[in-house]
């Protein structure tokens, strides 16, 4: 399998662990990733704050670049993924906007490439048996909760995502890897990531509730697939020291390609937890 790769701005800064773990895991699984050349910012999460059309036109440039590769584009960042899919839908419905975009960036059609989120590729494209064969270090019943957030699931009709009220893909993956996926009611509740900088008090309230609920469910860490959520959950929780993993980090541990280099990048160091469950060293 071969995919184009759009890391997005976050994965080059606050979400570096995501970038590193995605590359490590995909390489271990034999899926080639080619970074999209000269990709640009998709505008999340400011373009749509001031103009709906701008929020379509910025992703359009990347969509045009992707067309030329002929490959599906892996977009680990949930915000980038969401914005690109929503933009594609708008471009398909609005001929004027589409014409403008093509005039600017070149053709948007020709190949049928589409944006793909990490979780879907791992859970739906890859036969589960093939993936599990590569597991060298089962997760020893590590109690976790899956946190999908908003942008991977909603709007479901456009994203063609699983049921936003009851998503299961991540839970199933974690369970198969030997972790203990705890049930909770907050898997797709908003953490307020989009308001993280402008309204810290709102966001602290939302994150506080999520972290408490995770604790109450008996989880020792939250697993997410969105860099906005990850940094927000780490940065805005107070007093809990609950580690927040990317799903690819957890998978990397199981596949034996986990690197201590990226644990150090976490604001909340997960290494003590991993040691307790004999998952490092």
């Amino acid at each position, binding site marked *: 399998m071969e995919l184009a790769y759009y890391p997005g701005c976050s994965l080059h800064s606050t979400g570096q662990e995501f970038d590193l773990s995605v590359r490590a895991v995909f390489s271990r699984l034999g899926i080639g990733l080619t970074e999209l050349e000269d990709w640009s910012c998709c505008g999340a999460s400011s373009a749509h704050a001031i103009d709906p059309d701008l929020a379509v036109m910025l992703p359009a440039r990347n969509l045009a670049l992707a067309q030329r590769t002929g490959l599906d584009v892996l977009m680990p960042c949930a915000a980038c993924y969401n914005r690109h899919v929503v933009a594609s839908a708008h471009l398909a419905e609005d001929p004027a906007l589409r014409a403008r975009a093509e005039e600017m960036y070149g053709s948007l059609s020709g190949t049928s490439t589409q944006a793909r989120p990490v979780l879907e590729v791992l859970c739906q494209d890859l036969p589960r048996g093939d993936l599990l064969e590569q597991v060298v270090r089962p997760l020893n019943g590590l109690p976790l909760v899956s946190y999908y957030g908003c942008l991977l699931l909603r709007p479901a009709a456009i994203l063609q995502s699983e*049921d*936003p*009220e*009851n998503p299961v893909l991540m839970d199933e993956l974690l369970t198969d890897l030997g972790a203990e996926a705890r*049930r*909770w*009611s*907050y898997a797709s*509740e908003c953490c307020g990531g989009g308001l993280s900088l402008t309204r810290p008090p709102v966001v602290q309230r939302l994150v506080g509730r999520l972290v408490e*609920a995770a604790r*109450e469910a008996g989880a020792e860490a939250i697993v997410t697939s969105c860099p906005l959520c990850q940094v927000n959950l780490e940065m805005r929780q107070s007093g809990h020291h609950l580690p927040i993993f990317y799903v690819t980090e957890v998978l990397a541990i199981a596949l034996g390609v986990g690197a201590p280099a990226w644990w150090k990048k976490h604001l909340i160091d997960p290494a003590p937890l991993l040691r307790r469950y004999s998952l490092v060293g």
Partner: protein
Amino acid sequence: MSEARPSALVIGAGIAGIQAALDIANSGYRAVLVESEPSIGGHMAQLSETFPTLDCSQCILTPRTVEVGHHANIDLRTYSLVEDIRRSKDGSAFQVRIRRKAAYVDWSKCTGCGACQEKCPFKVESDFERGVGVRKVIYTLSPQAVPNKPVIDAEHCRYLISKHEIESGTVAALTKSGKPAEPKCGACAKFCPTEAIDWDQKDTYEELEVGAIVLATGFDLMSPAQLGEYGGGQLPDVVDGLAFERLLAASGPTAGRVLRPSDGQEPRNVVFIQCCGSRDPARGQPHCSKICCMYTAKQAILYKHHVHGGEATVFYIDVRAAGKGYEEFLQRAQVQEQVNYIRGKVSRVYAENGHLVVKGADTLGHRSVDVIADMVVLAMAVQPRPETRRLAEMLDLAIDDSGFLCGLDEELAPIETLQSGVFLAGTVQGPRDIPESVAQGSAAAGKVIQRLRQQGGEAAA
């Protein structure tokens, strides 16, 4: 089997079908009443009390079911399905094929003593109890069942499963000691005093001719699992309206004590959410289910009667108390019984610290409200039963967007259909309450009698 006497087929033995059959039979014509469940009564048999008089549902229903069971002019075909209907060449009659499902009990021998149910060692979740109670693998729906004859649930019966395994060769035909393998269990057969258990019973078919048909196949509630935000199907203490009826009913699994499913404790706070899947074109049904406002008010009142000091909260969009005495009943719930009514829809039900947090909003007070509850009752949308569509295709009848059958003219001829001789009664046509269903059942019977009289058949004396 078909007699010379003119007769009508009534499909579905809920209250509408029962009323139609009784009115036809009491006018001297024969009614063949077909029901897919083992006994008659429909959803009304599941209800505790009825609004607005709080009459016990079972108590007012039983005289009717008993009358059906004994009526000389009614041929009862329970545990049976209508497989095929064809109109005769001259158009005046219908050829009907009925399949009776194998019950593995010879009802002509069975006395309904109940020994088999007592001795059967296996329990499974009961559909009749809406998942909040269990039944044996050989079962009747209730002690007052008409007919009071049990059926064996072949899917879960240990004996039938092992018998099938031996016959199909998945299990060796000989045991280690060389004896022929025997199916396991068979407790019901051992204890049956009349040897009524018939392990070899097969589905049987019957063909008959009728002069008219009444469709009264009723409704189902939409599954709560379709509303993930309320934890339907995941949180055990989130139940639908019919399940709560069973918890209120004296004949229910808790013998009329309101106990929550997760831990058997008495809930101190119950939240009722209306319009669950109704008035929801985006994710459920576009229509209003009509009965929920009233049964929710009733359930809240009954809950407060059962659990002294209990708190009941109802979330609603509009309260639809349109019917005789209904507005007054609603007032009673709100004022006398102090049920807390909040105008606004619930967005999410969370499980937290062993209870439920219901996140709603009060549109009149313009504030968000989080109600801590021990139990949540969802007034799920009323929708047509799956077999209704099959019958509609068989008979070439019109169906509306929600899947309910259409009257010839929904306003002026709600009972008649596009097909002469085929009539509708009750919720098969759309959500409605008991008195409306009864009136429709009678009205459909009137159309049948008219038709049979016009066809010249004289009623039996």
